[in-house]
């Protein structure tokens, strides 16, 4: 039963438990978090099970309700989707462990709906990744986004505004995507991705098809916060509760990036996205501008979470650059960066959460050496993740840059190469700023009351440390991942 249904089980389990959660925790609110954690753990197990199956060369499809494609909804597990699902569920699991220590403080009376929303959010994310149907994808996208709006809105005072803005832009993006689906359906008469790919390959390119592509890509770029469309991101990440930031930053934008990969390479195919219209070039230069813009603005920020948010804008740019190169190395770099960035940003946002939990703020100008004394573990995690962001080998971050650079060189695209390399210097600037404060600036002892807690609780510290120190492992073992999983599914035509 499990082997037959394993592709569908992950979104189904999270959906079912999201619904059941209000009933289960109706009487006892404290049950909400352990239950969520349990579900998340199951999802991790299942996604590893899936990836193990895919590993053996299976390409697992699942037909919803027994209806065969192209009529029915198809779920598809190939190395790409299994891999991304694995990444997302693992990061989410660690973030959820961390949430155990911080939830009561950040969302005091709303833990039950909050946990339900997290599960819905994960359901949406996993659904997007696993579905092989463009309309079903839209539905999951909306589940995912709606849960996201809710998760953000419970944050600080200004979070509602941030969430509202995200909602407006997110709905705009989703509507664009839906409109694109409409065009696509009119042109091809199908909604199944594999079917679409087959049809698009044989029909002549026509304006409606291009319109469909443009609309869908614009919609996804909005959700992904690709550079000029990133307006919603900084506020949303800054004002959201720590758990939300740590969930949405690694997962939210990555999922949209994944959809972009699927659409560009596996549905429309290189023939259209590169040869017919210069869409990938446009994405690439937008992304490159985003890398520089995000890094520069990150340097200017005074608030750590906002700084990390702008850094996310830059890091999403890396993924965009990797896609735009349209060669195997660039593609590998982009996919690997989804993994690496998920871990790095997850760890960094968890550190920011720990700081807020411990000292009540995360404003960089107020950092000093006392933080290091009080939170040696958190600061170590921060350092490792930051080194990885800068791209110091053998951390994971270096290798995504490595593959991206190889891709850029392969295409003789020197602009991209320069952007990738220069941005790591910019990354260094904004992280070293924090290091200097945390490790070198002596704290003035008068306003010592800013530090509420003596030590960081283990439940906060352990997931942070695991996420950040696994970056070293991910870096050392990246070749294994690349050859065994990512390179197994290079898009056709590269």
């Amino acid at each position: 039963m499990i082997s037959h249904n394993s592709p569908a089980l992950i979104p189904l389990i999270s959906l079912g438990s999201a619904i059941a959660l209000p009933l289960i925790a109706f009487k006892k609110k404290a049950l909400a978090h352990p239950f969520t954690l349990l579900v998340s753990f199951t999802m991790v197990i299942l996604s590893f099970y899936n990836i193990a199956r895919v590993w053996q060369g299976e390409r697992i499809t699942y037909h919803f309700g027994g209806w065969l494609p192209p009529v029915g909804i198809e779920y598809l597990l190939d190395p790409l989707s299994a891999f991304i699902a694995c990444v997302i569920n693992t990061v989410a699991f660690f973030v959820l462990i961390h949430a155990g220590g911080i939830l009561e403080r950040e969302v005091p009376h709303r833990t039950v709906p909050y946990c339900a929303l997290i599960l819905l959010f994960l359901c949406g994310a996993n659904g997007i990744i696993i579905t092989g149907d463009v309309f079903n994808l839209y539905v999951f996208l909306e589940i995912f986004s709606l849960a996201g709006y809710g998760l953000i809105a419970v944050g600080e005072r200004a979070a509602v505004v941030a969430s509202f803005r995200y909602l407006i832009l997110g709905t705009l993006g989703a509507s664009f995507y839906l409109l694109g689906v409409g065009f696509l359906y009119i042109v091809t008469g199908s909604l199944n991705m594999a079917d679409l790919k087959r049809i698009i390959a044989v029909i002549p390119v026509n304006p409606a098809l291009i319109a469909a592509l443009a609309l869908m890509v614009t919609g996804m770029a909005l959700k992904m916060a690709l550079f000029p469309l990133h307006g919603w991101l900084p506020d949303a990440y800054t004002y959201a509760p720590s758990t939300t930031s740590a969930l949405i930053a690694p997962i939210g934008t990555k999922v949209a990036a994944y959809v972009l990969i699927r659409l560009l390479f596996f549905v429309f195919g290189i023939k259209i996205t590169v040869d017919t219209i210069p869409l990938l070039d446009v994405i690439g230069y937008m992304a490159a501008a985003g890398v520089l813009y995000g890094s520069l603005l990150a340097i200017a920020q005074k608030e750590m979470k906002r700084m990390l948010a702008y850094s996310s804008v830059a890091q999403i740019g890396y993924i965009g650059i990797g896609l735009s190169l349209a060669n195997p190395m660039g593609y590998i770099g982009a996919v690997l960066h989804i993994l690496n960035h998920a871990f790095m940003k997850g760890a960094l946002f968890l550190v920011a959460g720990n700081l807020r939990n411990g000292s009540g703020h995360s404003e960089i100008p107020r950092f000093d050496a006392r933080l290091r004394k009080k939170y040696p573990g958190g600061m170590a995690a921060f350092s490792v993740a930051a080194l990885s962001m800068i791209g110091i080998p053998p951390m994971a971050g270096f290798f995504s840059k490595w593959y991206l650079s190889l891709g850029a060189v392969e295409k003789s695209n020197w602009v991209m190469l320069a952007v990738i390399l220069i941005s790591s210097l910019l990354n260094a600037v904004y992280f070293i700023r924090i290091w200097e404060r945390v490790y070198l600036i002596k704290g003035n002892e008068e306003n010592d009351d800013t530090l509420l807690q003596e030590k960081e609780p283990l439940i906060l510290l352990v997931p942070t440390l695991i996420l950040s120190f696994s970056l070293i492992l991910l870096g050392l073992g990246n070749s294994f991942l690349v050859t065994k999983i990512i390179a197994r599914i290079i898009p056709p035509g590269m």
Partner: protein
Amino acid sequence: MRRFRRNIIILMVSKMVAPYIMLFAFYVIFHGHLSPGGGFQGGTLLSAAILLMRLTAGIKLGERQFKRILGTPLGSLGVLIYFGVGFLALLWGGEFLNYAYLPFGLTPEKLRYLGILLVEIGVGIAVAAILVSIYDDLLEHNNE
């Protein structure tokens, strides 16, 4: 904000209309698998009937008809019925929502028939409850 004032004419009219809306709602829900209609539409109608009473009679009287606190659990329950039917099929060897595998000992045609009916009922309950609770939540006054 304007305070709520009960208007006897509107109240009487809606008192007479609401049951019929509800009746029609049930009709739509239970015939969803046979004719146009179904859980979504029926649920919306059902919630319209409830909301009509809430609007005209005020929340206090309205709560006698449908308790506010019931909104979320009933919504969950409705989706759970839907989900449970789907999952039951999954557990008994089919795919999710493959009604032909439901363990009720009928022919596959009948099972599909039954399965859709169950799902429509679940959806109907969920939609009605959720729409009502959206209304309630929007009305809620918690001064932050």
